[in-house]
């Protein structure tokens, strides 16, 4: 067991290094764009004097490297913009301050995360169930109607854009059938029922789209697994078909499925941009898109880094789970 502890420590250390390199890259990219964020905050008319003031207040008049170092220091020590009574304080961990929104990026992300997490987690449970079960059914009926049907559904799912399916779902379930609310988000803490009721359409839309790749992966993995000798052994021992398929077949197909699931979920937690837009939900993706529109560089950098962190974290979790799932990895 200490093996796994060491593994996690090493990986966390590597994660910090990757995040550092990534933050520098993201910072340089977004600060290299020719637009000046200070312009937006300086108001109209924007005299050169006021612009200079705004630049100084936002600490944009320093060198790029100095700005980056300020950013890094802010994560651990917090930052103060300006001085005197007009000073703006961004408490640690400070991932930048959004002047257009007048709030620290950390707070913005923390506010939006529950929305995105609600969408992503609910959809993830659904697509895993749909994808794996349809994939298994397809594999067991290889070449027959059920297989063709599942593969067909997968093909449609893979090739449909989420905004199209989202809009169609809103049109059908929201307006024609008038079954579900067409937009908005209700926090879970306020009313779990309303929360789920508002989310069920985006869940289904995302699940149908994502399930496609799980159908294909599960089908391919199961076809491979069910051809292995130990499956024949299980039958020869007298195991029934259900046991052969689930306990022996699906168990082996699990590792790649879990890997894909972890990475997909990590990616989606960083913001389901189109889905949030279509269903008018104020999640991370929506935050990112409007920040880009307003040249709110602090938010863009913050959300991008947060998404990247989630993906790196998902990779780490997947690797740990992989070890737990495959004794050939953990009992090397």
């Amino acid at each position, binding site marked *: 067991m200490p093996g796994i502890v060491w593994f996690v420590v090493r990986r966390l250390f590597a994660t910090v290094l990757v995040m550092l390199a990534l933050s520098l890259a993201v910072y340089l990219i977004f600060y290299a764009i020719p637009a000046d964020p200070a312009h937006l905050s300086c108001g109209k008319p924007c005299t050169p004097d006021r612009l200079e003031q705004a630049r100084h207040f936002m600490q944009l008049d320093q060198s790029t490297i100095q700005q980056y170092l300020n950013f890094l220091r802010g994560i651990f020590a917090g930052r103060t913009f300006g001085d005197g009574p007009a000073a703006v304080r961004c408490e640690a961990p400070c991932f930048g301050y959004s002047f257009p929104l007048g709030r620290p990026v950390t707070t913005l992300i923390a506010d939006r995360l529950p929305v995105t997490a609600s969408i992503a987690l609910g959809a993830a449970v659904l697509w895993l169930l749909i994808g794996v079960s349809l994939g298994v059914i397809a594999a067991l009926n290889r070449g027959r109607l059920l297989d063709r049907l599942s593969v067909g559904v997968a093909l449609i799912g893979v090739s449909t854009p989420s905004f199209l399916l989202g809009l169609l779902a809103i049109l059908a379930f929201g307006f024609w059938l008038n079954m579900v609310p067409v937009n908005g988000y209700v926090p879970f803490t306020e009313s779990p029922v309303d929360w789920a009721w508002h989310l069920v359409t985006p869940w289904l839309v995302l699940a149908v789209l994502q399930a496609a790749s799980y159908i294909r992966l599960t089908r391919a993995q199961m076809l491979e697994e069910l051809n292995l000798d*130990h499956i024949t*052994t299980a039958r*020869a*021992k007298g*195991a029934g*078909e259900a046991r052969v398929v689930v306990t022996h077949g699906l*168990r082996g197909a699990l590792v790649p499925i879990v890997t894909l699931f972890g990475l997909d979920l990590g990616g989606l937690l960083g913001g389901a941009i189109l889905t949030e837009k279509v269903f008018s939900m104020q999640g991370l993706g929506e935050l990112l898109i409007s920040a880009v529109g307003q040249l709110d560089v602090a938010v863009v950098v913050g959300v991008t880094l947060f998404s990247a962190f989630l993906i790196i974290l998902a990779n780490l979790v997947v690797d740990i789970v992989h070890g737990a*799932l495959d004794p050939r990895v953990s009992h090397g």
Partner: protein
Amino acid sequence: MAEPILEVHDLRVTFATEGGPVPAVDGIDFAVAPGETLAIVGESGSGKSVSSAAVMGLLPSNAEVRGEVLLDGRELVGLEADELRKIRGNDIALVFQDALSALNPYYSVGWQVAEAYRLHHDVSKKVAFRRAVEMLDKVGIPDAARRAKSYPHEFSGGMRQRVVIAMALVNNPRVLIADEPTTALDVTVQAQIMQLLADVQEEFGTALVLISHDLGVVAEVADDVLVMYAGRAAERGTVRDLFFRAAHPYSLGLLGAMPRIDVPPTRRLTTIPGSPPSPGSISAGCPFQPRCAYTERVGERCVTERPELTPRPGEGDHEAACHLGRRPEVVA
């Protein structure tokens, strides 16, 4: 011979393929009594493994099985899947050639042996595991209680084969089918495994069907031998009939291809020219005719008429399917 426990009459297996039906086994008969050993010998593709899979009802759904398989007088061909499941692993058990691929990599060996027991006994997991440890100990796994928790990849080839044997024997089956159980092992380990099989056979009175192409092993352990060629019986008899009074040119070819300790090592081993016919391409005549050194002595008959099994001099029911009436002298 004592009353047979397993009797196979006129077993035929045909695979439905896109190119039409392909006969893999074309009418074979054999029987084995408790405590006795029948060896089925032949090249790859001669139908010996298909025959054993047919006995266990383990063939894929595109295989059609005809004929009789009687276990203690009970017909197994066409039995309900669930009835057959109760017999598999309980009354008839199978030992595979490659123990590494025959074991499930995701479960401990103790779990796998215990599973075989639990599938046929209504006991708790704990009791089954204890029984598994007992069985692992019996087949000579040192420190069985601890090793039961290890995974297949943590064992050596010989130890893995012992695990597979423990799994096959955990329910005290009446018939054990061993499909090339020692092919993947080195010679000293081979001898240990064969000794182990002989020991359990003696202890439990198990009937053993040994599928092998290793005539050295066959000479050592078999009571009766069935030589298969292209899905048919070429010759059958007691082990002494085959080794001292072989009547079929194919049997002679196999014997000639075997290294012998009493022949100077400078002499080259003889080989049988050509390769076995692919199933479905067999013409009206003797399937071995294209490779046979004796065709000229018999003439046309070998090409036009398929030889049936006819009695030959020997101990018991020594029979061979060859038009050559008397025992052929070896053609150098």
